[in-house]
């Protein structure tokens, strides 16, 4: 990997579960439970995992939209975990986010042009006339026509609305764009348009993406490296090609086997796991995957596997290490 833009170390975010009239704490949601990764300049790190595994919480913690319970977030080497609002302000510019639902994240009463120009205006980066010209350029960059600047969000299709969100994220020339399921709500033909746009923009501007999706194929397509999460932890992380060619964690293997391949001659659906993801309120002891793992051993119930290097920057958190029963 190149120089790290973002370094996350042992990030935890726990939420109290309260019940009863006294709102007494009856449990803890282990939304993110010890996540570490680094993201290089110009790199895309894909974060996959099933719903509730903590992907969005990681994203929001990185952007300091939620306060982490513990751990460290470094941007360009500087620890931003505990920076005050004012001290954080210059960093806010360099980190932007694009959400899944472009409609919910756009103010219906603002024109598309004002939405895209707002961050530039707020940061006082372009006076009057110049602002319009910059917004027009941003519209062109994301494949919208500048003559649509006066239109309101409802006058755009879903894919176009996502382009507006992307233009707004680009406005402050960020170094990191967190994409939280940016294409999950779009039809396949539109999804392809937005993925291509994101790839093209990265090639032009050289920023980094933390790209979250539950669709492995989408993540596989856009990422350089991929991290797989399960119940608040990263269970495997590797270069994209390596991860898909040589998945080592039993959960990653199960995820891959579950993806329906668009080829009737390719092997049939093989569910390699039973049951549902357990609740993060009282996650299973030891290896959190042991309740669904084909290879689970007695010690998996008590020993928590650490994320260890398995060579070539491929890290796996499994007591078998290679997931095939061969042991370490």
């Amino acid at each position, binding site marked *: 990997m190149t120089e790290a833009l973002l370094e996350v170390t042992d990030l935890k975010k726990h939420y109290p579960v309260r019940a009863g009239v006294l709102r007494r704490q009856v449990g803890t949601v282990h939304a993110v439970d010890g996540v570490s990764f680094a993201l290089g300049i110009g790199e895309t790190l894909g974060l996959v995992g*099933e719903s509730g595994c903590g992907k969005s919480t990681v994203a929001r913690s990185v952007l300091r939209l939620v306060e982490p319970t513990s751990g460290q977030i470094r941007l360009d080497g500087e620890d931003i975990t505990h920076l005050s609002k004012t001290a954080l302000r210059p960093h806010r510019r360099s980190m932007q986010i694009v959400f899944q639902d472009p409609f919910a994240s756009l103010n219906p009463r603002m024109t598309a042009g004002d939405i895209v120009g707002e961050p530039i205006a707020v940061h006082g980066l372009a006076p009057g006339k110049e602002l319009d010209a910059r917004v027009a350029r941003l519209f062109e960059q994301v494949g919208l026509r500048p003559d649509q600047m006066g239109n309101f969000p409802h006058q755009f299709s879903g894919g176009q609305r996502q382009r507006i969100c992307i233009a707004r994220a680009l406005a402050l020339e960020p170094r990191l764009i967190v994409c939280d399921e940016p294409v999950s709500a779009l*039809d396949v*033909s539109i999804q392809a348009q937005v993925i291509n746009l994101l790839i093209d923009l990265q090639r032009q501007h050289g920023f980094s993406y933390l790209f979250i999706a539950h669709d492995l*194929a*989408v993540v596989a397509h*856009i990422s350089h490296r991929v991290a797989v999460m399960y119940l608040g932890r990263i269970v495997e992380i590797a270069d994209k090609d390596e991860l898909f*060619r040589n998945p080592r964690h039993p959960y990653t293997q199960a995820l891959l086997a579950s993806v329906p391949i668009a080829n009737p001659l390719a092997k*049939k*659906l093989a569910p390699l*796991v039973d049951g549902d993801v357990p609740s993060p309120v009282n996650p299973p002891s030891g290896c959190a995957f042991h309740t669904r793992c084909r290879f689970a051993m007695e010690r998996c119930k008590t020993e928590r596997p650490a994320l260890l290097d398995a060579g070539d920057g491929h890290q796996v958190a499994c007591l078998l290490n290679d997931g095939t029963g061969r042991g370490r």
Partner: protein
Amino acid sequence: MADKTDLVLDVKNLKTVFFTNSGLFKAVDDLSFSVRRGETLAIVGESGCGKSVTALSLMRLVPDPPGRIVGGSVALEGTDLLALDESEMRSVRGNRISMIFQEPMTSLNPVMRIGDQIVEAVRLHRNISSKEAQGIAVEMLRLVRIPEPARRAREYPHQLSGGMRQRAMIAMALACRPALLIADEPTTALDVTIQAQILALILDLQKELGTGLVLITHDLGVVAQTAQRVIVMYAGRKVEEASVEALFAAPKHPYTRGLMASIPAVPASGVAAQARLNEIPGTVPSLVRLPQGCAFAPRCKLAIKRCEAEYPPLSDWGGGHLAACWRAEEVAEVA
């Protein structure tokens, strides 16, 4: 072609329209297809192309107003459902033809125990004691592989996980052993490992019970892994129909080709980092203002003058591979 008696469902020229503030439009236009016993027919297409309205039309559940079935026939085991009165239809619905939805709470009652709901569904159509029906309910929950079925039968829907609720809905839909099951995006809201479990379950049960299955999805991967035949819809019309093997080997319609090229594949070994995807330009047209000719023409790379003027007929390109495109013959070479 199969023996006529083997046909569970035979839909001919179905047409369903909506009367809305922005005008009248045909959500389903001149749609014909059939399903054999034990066969899975997939209906695939992007949102708004008329998949759910097709399903609701088969069930005679199109909300009226604003919708209405204005033409065609829907023959289930030889009986035209569109000719039945509502009370006759009620005795067929949930009995000979059943439907499952993306969101299980569409068909589950939140304030009734799971087991009681199945009992009610069964006793609506079969003259059996409540005790017998309870036995069937537990048996159905076991069939859909819900652990501890007798205990689960006494629980309410909210006490089950998403995947388990989906199973309970399937149990209810199959309790009367229908001849035809319609599954409208049954796994779209589920995580991929749960999707694999539910799809495998539906296919197993279908094989076991010999049910005909209409599986509606927007996911070509799901089509490839489950169906024998497939219909591709665009703007309310069937634009292509084929066996899955034929469709994936050589799609005839430019829209189908475009869809296939735009899905990212889980990479095999050695795939380069970050390839661009093929995209279909533009967006799905509004049904209220459809072009006069081929509805796909504004987005089609192959469009010629004729496409804008005349709607292309569905032609058979051999072996029951149908496509509605003026240039279907050339698609493989030029696209």
